[in-house]
């Protein structure tokens, strides 16, 4: 009998085997110091709903053409105007999606309650907090079913590289990595995967009795999937683990091509770079052959908008703006994500090309303006976990590098020489906790396009 009064709420369907899996992960002799508790919170009847959702997502096409909203969008608009207070206050639903004014993170942050549909049961409501880089911390309302349904999109992405997740009872399905001074850590099980284990761990030595336990523990868990952000994955690659996962999933920030190559070489498994947002869930997966991020959600329509809120011409860069999604607690209509890309159609569906966070910035060097995408390309071969580039008002450039990537500074400066010649570039270490914009400039003209 677990003494924690919330144990049953976290694990409503937990079996004896599931409890043994929790104990195995938490009480292992090399286990980290788990700081927190979490659970799947799924009710018995919801497990079947997760399965049927996964089946639907596995087979459905993202079958639309840019600029032509699919047929479901009209019903989605009508339903959202009927049930969501923010939209109900606007009156009748518009006849065309493009007539609707887009919203942004600041609109959600102002009063998120106005965006939660009437039918959402507040008793099951839960939230994810996101700090972001735009000065608008955001509470994202969610539901245990929504959280569980993330896996449907990861499985869709994994199938593209020939991986069908299959770990079940008595096995650890997923380990989520962090590498931070402080990190939310816990153990759980996935009822939709026959109670396979799920652990969220912090690779920072602070959370371990001995730093060597990190590799020992990961080898003992032998997870099928390892997920993390580029910083934690770079640390993972440096550990002397003898057991490789079947696949690695990178989220949270752009995965540099060089780091992806390093991970693929180190673990000999596919490494997926998934573009995912708290507000929308997993949106797209990077596909080298498609030349960009391939969209994953069959019921998410994507537009690329210019600064004036109107769609740009096909293939032009603009702000990634989404309609639809699977978070029933936060239906989105023309939500501007703050990320930028161009949208093109490839044989497997719509693809986001040159996806980059936040507003494009251009840099001046050798008498020319260089787009931040040029900077990304110049550095792509290097296994850098995280970097920033800032140009001061006087034109001085400063490259920020995560501590684990400082050794790559000479190679990075050489690579940037393609763009900026022998322009002096300073090097600044960026700390793990820094949540900063990747590309910034105080130079006049840096935010203009062209």
């Amino acid at each position, binding site marked *: 009998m677990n003494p924690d009064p*919330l144990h049953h709420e976290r694990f409503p369907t937990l079996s004896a085997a599931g409890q043994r899996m929790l104990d195995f992960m938490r009480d292992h002799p090399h286990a980290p110091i788990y700081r*927190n*508790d*979490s*659970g*799947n*919170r799924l009710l018995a009847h919801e497990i079947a709903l997760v399965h049927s959702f996964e089946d639907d997502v596995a087979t459905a096409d993202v079958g639309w053409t840019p600029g032509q909203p699919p047929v479901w969008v009209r019903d989605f608009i009508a339903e959202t*105007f009927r049930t969501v*207070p923010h939209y*109900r*206050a*606007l*009156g*009748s639903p*518009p*006849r*065309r999606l493009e*007539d*609707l*004014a887009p919203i942004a993170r600041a609109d959600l942050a102002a009063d*998120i*309650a*106005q965006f939660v549909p*009437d039918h*959402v049961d*507040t*008793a099951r*409501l*839960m*939230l*994810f*907090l*996101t700090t972001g880089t735009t000065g608008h911390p955001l*509470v994202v*309302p*969610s539901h*245990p079913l929504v*959280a*569980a349904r*993330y*896996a449907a999109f*990861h499985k869709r992405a994994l199938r593209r590289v020939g991986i069908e997740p299959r770990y079940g009872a008595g096995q650890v399905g*997923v380990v*989520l990595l962090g590498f931070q001074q402080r990190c*939310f850590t*816990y153990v*759980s099980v*996935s009822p939709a995967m026959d109670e396979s284990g*799920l652990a*969220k761990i912090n690779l920072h030595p602070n959370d371990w009795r001995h730093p060597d336990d990190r590799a020992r523990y990961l080898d003992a868990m032998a997870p099928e*999937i390892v*997920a993390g952000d580029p910083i934690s994955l770079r640390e993972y690659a440096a550990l002397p683990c003898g057991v490789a996962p079947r696949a690695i*999933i990178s*989220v*949270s920030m752009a995965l540099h091509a060089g780091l992806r190559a390093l991970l693929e070489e180190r673990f000999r498994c596919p490494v997926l770079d*998934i573009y*995912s*947002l*708290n507000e929308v869930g*997993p949106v797209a997966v990077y596909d080298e052959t498609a030349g960009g991020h391939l969209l994953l959600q069959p019921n998410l329509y994507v537009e690329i908008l210019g600064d004036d809120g109107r769609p740009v011409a096909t293939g032009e860069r603009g702000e990634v703006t989404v309609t639809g999604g699977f978070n029933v607690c936060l239906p989105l209509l023309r939500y501007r994500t703050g990320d930028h890309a161009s949208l093109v159609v490839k044989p497997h569906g719509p693809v986001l090309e040159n996806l980059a966070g936040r507003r494009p910035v251009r840099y001046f060097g050798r008498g020319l303006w260089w787009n931040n995408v040029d900077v990304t390309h110049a550095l792509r071969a290097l296994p850098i976990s995280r970097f920033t580039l800032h140009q001061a008002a006087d034109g001085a450039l400063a490259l920020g590098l995560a501590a684990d990537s400082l050794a790559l500074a000479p190679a990075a400066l050489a690579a940037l020489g393609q763009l900026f010649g022998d322009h002096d570039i300073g090097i600044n270490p960026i700390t793990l906790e820094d949540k900063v914009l990747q590309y910034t400039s105080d130079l006049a003209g840096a935010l203009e396009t062209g």
Partner: protein
Amino acid sequence: MNKPGPALEAMTRRLLDTPAEFMDEPRLDGMGTVSVAALVHDLMRLHGHRVPASWLEALGGAQARARRNRLAVAMIACWLLADEWFVAQALPGDALCALFMDTAPALAESTPAHNFVLDAGYGEELVRVTLAHFGYRPADETPAQAQDRLAAVSGAARRRLLEASRAAEKRAREVREALARKAAEEAADKWTRE
């Protein structure tokens, strides 16, 4: 409401036949296609009146979230008032202005604009309120009957607005409280964390 007006059915029929253009998106903050100011300007000209540009620009009021539905109701009112019966009555300019500044925005408070076209009950409300605004009543109704029926539809609208406002406030409070309560708890598992 002393003056006899047109048959109620003729006017509700006109609303059911509202052309699609009158249900297009009002132009607002760079979005939409229909200039409601131009539409109302043309209607005023049809009735033999001129209004200043500043008055037209103020249509819909200053409340950003309420403006869209107010302008959409004004568009449908334009279609109704362009009926030849209304045009033949030589409606006074100040009463027309008051309809767009006061009466139509009041209707927009409780009803999404297109309901006046798509739902016969709401259509009757718009016709009765518009006729009464200019001192008319539907043909074949006594002043007392017209007053009673107007009171019935208007009262229903006021109750709808009140109930919707109360429900919206209660719901928003519940959601905010639930989210504040959950902020102290952990969420549920996701395969990845953004």
